[in-house]
């Protein structure tokens, strides 16, 4: 009965979404107050209906209702409770429902936090979001119904893929979807602005906090996903340029460009067309990612079970959403003014270069991701594009961009002097160069790429600190420097925190890339293997029983000079419901390095207590990668909490020169 209630609620949501969307847009165009008002209640009703439906599906998981096909496929009665809750989004149908919950949730948030907006614009934003939701509702109801019954019901479920039975599943998809879907609000603002023909500074200011929120969630989501792959897949890598990773990375790159371009549009009224196009592209890339993951056109470790009907549907949806907004853009864009003029060297021009480089990077990832498809479609052959391509293309694009991150904040709007900026930064540049020359030696050898990374990271960090201190000094009142530092706006704090996060990330990537050490060795109990100052002693393997698996648990003693030895327990798990053994790496994480151990295979399958192939890694600064991403996301969240976004009055005050 409960699953039917969920389905009924979902079916009911479709006409609500369609009516609200169409009437709100029509009403805003015609100036009908009643229809405009409908947008507000309609959005809330939609979010409630979808929410009820989602709770019904969760209830079916909690009750182990294996007469629901999706539950029987994704869950089992021996599955731990937390994975029954998270298992809802462990497969295609449920994850799509989660996506919809977030979309309607964002729409409801946009309804409550948009009181300062003109009624017509607000109705347009909500209307666009409702129409996008209607598209996803159609998709779920016609191709991916999670409430389908299995009659007669199964006695036991097939259980969640053991790879997904991990805390990563609990947090990674929700964060990632919050990001993906969050860009729909920026998209809705862009389309609403195009519809009304009012692309102005106010529009950019309203878009900014939503874009920042989506971007921060996407940053966290990607970082958690990367961290999950790092400890779960047992290869010790943190990014694989897998098509699905790329699918999440492209909206991130475009979203990063959007954040910066919105700043120019808000402050100077320039780049309006470009900003709108970026807002449309960012959400379009989210949708394209959905298509790539769920239609089966590309192979990937993330692939969902595929069904051609789904691919066709999403493709049609892409055509409708992207095509309609492009049409609107092509119609409106030529009439939009150019905004304020700026000199060759100015904050505008630097942000333009930032946008250009990020756009090129997005294009490069898109090309690499779609290239196998292009080659196959032309009938030339079957190829896959791997890390060598992406690494070769990415470093030359990112290096100048990272250098500009340090310069950008120092540049004034309209016109700036490059000589002046460099003069102010002579010490920071010098220190960064010194760091690049010396720090890599600490890790046992100077390598150009590592030195470049260290230089850029140190430069971004020092320049951001210098800029912050100079700004604080310039605005210093009677309370001293510290008081002035604390009084800086959250927006300013957020920007610099995100940039410092980027520096931390770059330092981690360069150092671990150049100096990680790995050994794959045959070990009998009692054997020792050493990497640098670390010694790993293998103590043997024991059989242990988990809630729904049997595991061979290895024991490894890690010792390093002058510190108490620690025990690590890498596992090989055999889940009762699955034929594939799972490798659980054991990691001794630290600020300066991770020691990482993974069990390979026993040399003799009949003697798991004997010799094993064991992989051990020492990875310097690897945790900085995720720490940096976390700081970036935190910076984004701080910036969006700035009071300038909070009320209409504050906004107009700041706008007056």
């Amino acid at each position, binding site marked *: 009965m409960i699953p039917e209630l969920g389905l009924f609620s979902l079916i009911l949501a479709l006409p609500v979404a369609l009516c609200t969307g169409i009437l709100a847009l029509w009403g805003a165009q015609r100036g009908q107050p009643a229809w405009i008002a409908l947008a507000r209640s309609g959005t809330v009703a939609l979010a409630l209906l979808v929410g009820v439906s989602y709770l019904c599906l969760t209830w079916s998981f909690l009750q182990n209702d294996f007469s629901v096909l999706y539950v029987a496929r994704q869950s089992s009665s021996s599955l731990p409770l937390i994975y029954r809750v998270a298992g809802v989004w462990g497969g295609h149908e449920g994850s799509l429902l989660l996506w919809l919950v977030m979309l309607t949730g964002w729409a409801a948030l946009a309804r409550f936090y948009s009181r300062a907006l003109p009624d017509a614009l607000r109705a347009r934003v909500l209307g666009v979001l409702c129409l996008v939701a209607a598209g996803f509702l159609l998709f779920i109801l016609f191709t991916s119904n999670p409430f389908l019954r299995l009659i007669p019901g199964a006695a036991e479920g097939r259980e969640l893929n053991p790879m997904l039975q991990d805390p990563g599943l609990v947090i990674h998809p929700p964060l990632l979807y919050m990001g993906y879907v969050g860009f729909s609000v920026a998209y809705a603002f862009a389309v609403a602005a195009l519809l009304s023909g009012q692309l102005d500074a106010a529009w950019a200011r309203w878009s900014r906090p939503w874009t920042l929120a989506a971007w921060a969630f996407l940053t966290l989501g990607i970082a958690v996903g990367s961290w999950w792959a790092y400890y779960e897949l047992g290869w010790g890598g943190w990014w694989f340029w897998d098509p699905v990773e790329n699918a999440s990375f492209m909206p991130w790159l475009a979203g990063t460009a959007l954040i910066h371009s919105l700043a120019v549009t808000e402050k100077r009224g320039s780049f309006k067309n470009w900003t709108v196009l970026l807002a449309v592209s960012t959400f379009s890339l989210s949708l394209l990612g959905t*298509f790539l993951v769920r239609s089966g056109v590309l192979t990937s470790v993330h692939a969902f079970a595929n069904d*051609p009907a789904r691919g066709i549907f999403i*493709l049609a949806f892409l055509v409708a959403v992207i095509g309609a907004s492009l049409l609107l*853009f092509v119609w409106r864009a030529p009439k939009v003014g150019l905004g304020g003029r700026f000199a060759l060297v100015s904050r505008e021009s630097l942000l333009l270069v930032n946008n250009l480089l990020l756009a090129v990077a997005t294009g490069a990832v898109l090309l690499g991701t779609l290239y196998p*498809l292009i080659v196959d479609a032309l009938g030339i052959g*079957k190829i896959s594009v791997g890390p060598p391509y992406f690494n070769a293309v990415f470093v030359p694009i990112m290096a100048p961009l990272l250098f500009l991150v340090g310069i950008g904040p120092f540049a004034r709007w309209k016109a700036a002097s490059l000589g002046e900026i460099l003069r102010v930064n002579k010490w920071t540049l010098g220190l960064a160069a010194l760091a690049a020359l010396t720090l890599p030696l600490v890790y046992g050898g100077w390598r150009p790429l590592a030195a470049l990374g260290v230089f850029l990271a140190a430069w971004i960090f020092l320049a951001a600190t210098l800029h912050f201190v100079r700004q604080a000094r310039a605005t210093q009142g009677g309370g001293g420097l510290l008081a002035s530092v604390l009084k800086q706006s959250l927006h300013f704090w957020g920007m610099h925190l995100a940039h410092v996060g980027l520096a931390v990330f770059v330092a981690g990537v360069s150092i671990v890339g150049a100096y990680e050490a790995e050994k794959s060795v045959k070990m009998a109990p009692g054997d020792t293997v050493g990497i640098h100052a670390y010694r790993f002693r293998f103590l043997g393997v024991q059989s242990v029983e988990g809630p729904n698996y049997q595991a061979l648990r290895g024991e490894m003693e890690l010792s390093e000079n002058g510190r108490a030895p620690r025990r690590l327990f890498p596992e090989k798990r055999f889940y009762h419901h699955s034929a594939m053994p799972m490798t659980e790496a054991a990691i001794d994480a630290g600020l300066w390095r991770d020691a990482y151990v993974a069990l390979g295979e026993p040399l003799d399958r009949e003697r798991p207590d004997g010799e094993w192939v064991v992989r051990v890694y020492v990875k310097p600064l690897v945790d900085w990668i995720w720490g940096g991403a976390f700081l970036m996301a935190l910076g984004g969240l701080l910036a969006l909490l700035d009071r300038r976004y909070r009320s209409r009055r504050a906004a107009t005050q700041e706008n007056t020169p």
Partner: protein
Amino acid sequence: MNNRYLWLFVAFALLIVLLAVGLTRDPREIPSPLIDKPAPEFVLPRLDNDQPFTPKDMAGRVWLLNVWASWCASCRDEHPLLVDLAQKKLLPIVGLNYKEVRGDLSLDATKLALEAEKREAAARANLWLATHGNPYTLSILDLDGKVGIDYGVYGVPETYLIDETGIIRFKQIGPITPETLEKKLLPLIAQRDQKTED
């Protein structure tokens, strides 16, 4: 209409065409390097009478080599199709039972001696064939999966069409679907049969 943003539409249209074409392709369909190459040699015991079997025994005939195991869920999906095909008596189907005991990770095969493993494998395989029907002219046991390595087996079930001269003509990874049977396998078999008659 002269609009400087029109190129966006062209790019978008190209992208959509590309994705649409992509939908009609299967990225998992990887051409096997074994196609048009001689089937790798091996000698394995038969399931029914423990006599040695080698691909040479099938010389002069077009035959199917189907890789299966009782623990393989997709094999069960595929099975009725094979039973149907066997009833048509078009060609002999040899079942290569792949890692019957070792592949089943829900039990600890490491404690079994080789003879015991073989007995266990035969018992499981026979039980499965008795339950679901036996489409195979004969089945052979690949306990440790070494022959599977020679044939590049990476997903069970897999099926190889081997011609009268011992050359592999077609490989299916994963279960044979009615579509691949109609569109690929049967035409290839008919073509080979004609050649043999000529």
